[in-house]
């Protein structure tokens, strides 16, 4: 079958690879009908996530049709149309029982690697390095899905692929980021980064009752979506000082909650901090550039919440812990517990309360993946979200 393979930093190729087979009794094989490139795939593309190996199949946002199930799969059968969540979770360990699915204790075959780096291991993730299991990803014609009776959600035929595909990751991720803000009436939420996760976090914050949402980015096409499509107030950080702008917008209080939808490869405009972090990261003295995170902490009102949806991998420098402590900030974060949100969010899509397909700017063939990655990486042609069809 054809699959998008990581062949080194900034190198992806579409290659012929062996078809996946059922290996365990709770597996299913899915014929992929739509798959998307995630902003976090760019961290792999740029070589910032360790333990990628040449030839690894990429992709953790995918959906399709079940073609085969293992003998212990109860709830799915061939022909079912499903969306597959990116965290692989057994559904039976202590973490899964608490609905902390992205912390599943049984799905990472390389847990020892993650334990060396992070103390304990999170769940395995499709197409996201050997540290997180070495599972072949879903940017391919077929994918093997472990624990198929826990993860995949069946979707009705009346909804298009693009309406439901983002249940796999970014819609629940944006939603959990907003939920972690603990929004109450009157709250202002500021969102750093208006990529797909940031845009869906804005939409979710509005659904959860935020009075105002402020969107921060530098790309006009993204700010346009946030402002015109979603009705958020926008700040272009290449034009305005973000802290001053946020003070100004909130009568000097600061936002009640701040969402970091940027993560480890943050950018900053003409800033000494950016140069500092860029150099340290290049020299491997820190693994992540926490520029958006620092600013979100600094900007948040006293006693407020900083919700981190952006991906971080390792260690950072100059973390403003004094701000967090002295101003009683709460930091909430985590890989999304997607399984927890699938059914409620599918219902909201069915009721028309949210339609995440507005973020799609490019529809391409799986074979065009190398071009799609390069374009998405450079934000060319107004690229916000690419959907690939095998």
């Amino acid at each position, binding site marked *: 079958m054809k699959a998008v393979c990581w*062949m080194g930093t900034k190198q992806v190729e579409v290659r*012929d*690879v062996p078809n*996946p087979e059922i*290996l365990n009794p709770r597996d299913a094989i899915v014929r992929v009908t739509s798959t998307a490139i995630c902003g976090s795939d760019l961290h792999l593309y740029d070589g910032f996530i360790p333990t990628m190996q040449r030839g690894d199949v990429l992709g953790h946002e995918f959906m399709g049709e079940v073609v085969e199930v293992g003998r212990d799969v109860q709830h799915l059968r061939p022909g079912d149309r499903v969306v597959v969540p990116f965290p692989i979770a057994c559904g039976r360990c*202590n973490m899964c029982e608490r609905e902390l699915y992205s912390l599943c204790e049984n799905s990472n075959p390389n847990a020892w690697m993650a334990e060396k780096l992070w103390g304990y291991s999170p769940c395995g993730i499709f197409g996201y390095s050997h540290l997180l*299991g070495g*599972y072949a990803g879903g940017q391919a014609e077929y994918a093997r899905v*472990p624990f198929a009776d826990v993860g995949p959600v069946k979707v009705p035929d009346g909804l298009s692929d693009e309406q439901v595909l983002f249940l796999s990751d970014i819609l629940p991720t944006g939603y959990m980021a907003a939920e972690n803000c603990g929004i109450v009436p009157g709250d202002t939420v500021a969102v750093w980064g208006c990529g797909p996760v940031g845009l869906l976090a804005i939409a979710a914050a509005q659904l959860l009752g935020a009075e105002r949402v402020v969107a921060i980015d530098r790309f006009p096409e993204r700010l346009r979506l946030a402002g015109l499509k979603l009705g958020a107030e926008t700040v272009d950080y290449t034009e305005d000082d973000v802290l001053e702008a946020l003070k100004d917008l909130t009568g000097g209080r600061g936002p009640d909650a701040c969402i970091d939808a940027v993560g480890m490869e943050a950018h900053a405009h003409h800033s000494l901090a950016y140069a500092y972090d860029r150099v340290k990261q290049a020299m491997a003295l820190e693994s992540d550039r926490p520029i958006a995170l620092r600013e979100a902490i600094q900007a948040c009102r006293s006693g407020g919440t900083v919700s981190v949806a952006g991906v971080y991998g390792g260690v950072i420098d100059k973390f403003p812990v004094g701000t967090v402590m002295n101003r009683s900030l709460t930091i909430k974060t985590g890989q999304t517990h997607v399984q927890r949100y699938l059914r409620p969010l599918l219902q909201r899509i069915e009721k028309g309360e949210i339609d995440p397909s507005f973020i799609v700017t490019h529809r391409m063939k799986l074979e065009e993946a190398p071009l799609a990655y390069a374009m998405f990486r450079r934000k060319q042609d107004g690229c916000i979200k690419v959907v690939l069809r095998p």
Partner: protein
Amino acid sequence: MAEAQATGQQRLATGLGWFSVGLGLAEVASPGAVARFVGLRDSGGTRTVMRTFGAREIANGMALLASRPDPGWMWARVAGDVIDLSALGAAVGREDADRRRLAIGMASVAGVMLADLVCARQLGRTNGTATAARQDRAIRVAKTFTINRPPDEVYAYWRNLDHLPRFMRHLQSVRETGARRSHWVARGPAGMMFEWDAEITEDLPNQRIAWRSLPGADVDHRGDVRFDPAPGGRGTELRVHLEYHPPGGRTAARLARLFGREPGQQVEDDLRRLKQLLEAGEIARASEEVRA
């Protein structure tokens, strides 16, 4: 009889120790001459390698001379022989090599390696019966995992010894030979097979199982596993203790660690697989062949 045998091995170990020191001194003092002697081209690079090998020989030889005969240091010599052989083997393919001399050199190393192997194995056996020395070299491993199943279920799974090879990857088979006795077959490094008989020394249903290997075991060990209820209905806190005496002693265990076969890691991997089997019903694995 056993004592006479032990003195014989001590003498062999001491001899090999002096041989190491002598060869090492020659390699460090006149690396060019030694290189030419074994058929290598005498260049700056060869001399550096030769001096490094010499330093290794001296260190290994002194360790053998300084300690009571330790099979670990004999196994280190075996490892050194393997390095020497592969270095000489790699040189055979080179244009400027004196193949006749290289062949003689390799044959000599192979001969010495045979002596090293015999000595290491014999030392390992006699040490297995010398209680005082044995205590010193014991490797102790303690690992704990919480399994989200009740203690009676985890105990019952473990007590059925047939189940053990399902999550203890190095085990080939466990066969119950009596009410408390069983026969174990395991795979070791480099395809070596180990066998032993074991007996259960304590069996407290749903609480604890203790066992030990019987005399004559390839891997002399004892261990116990406890099944304590975890607080708040979180399942079972499984605690495993192992104490054993691998062939080759601690040094061999350290060498093994370099190749990812550290005993603590192996026990941890085994228990993680048990947790996966009992909770998820299967052992997590990626499709390793689905890749370019």
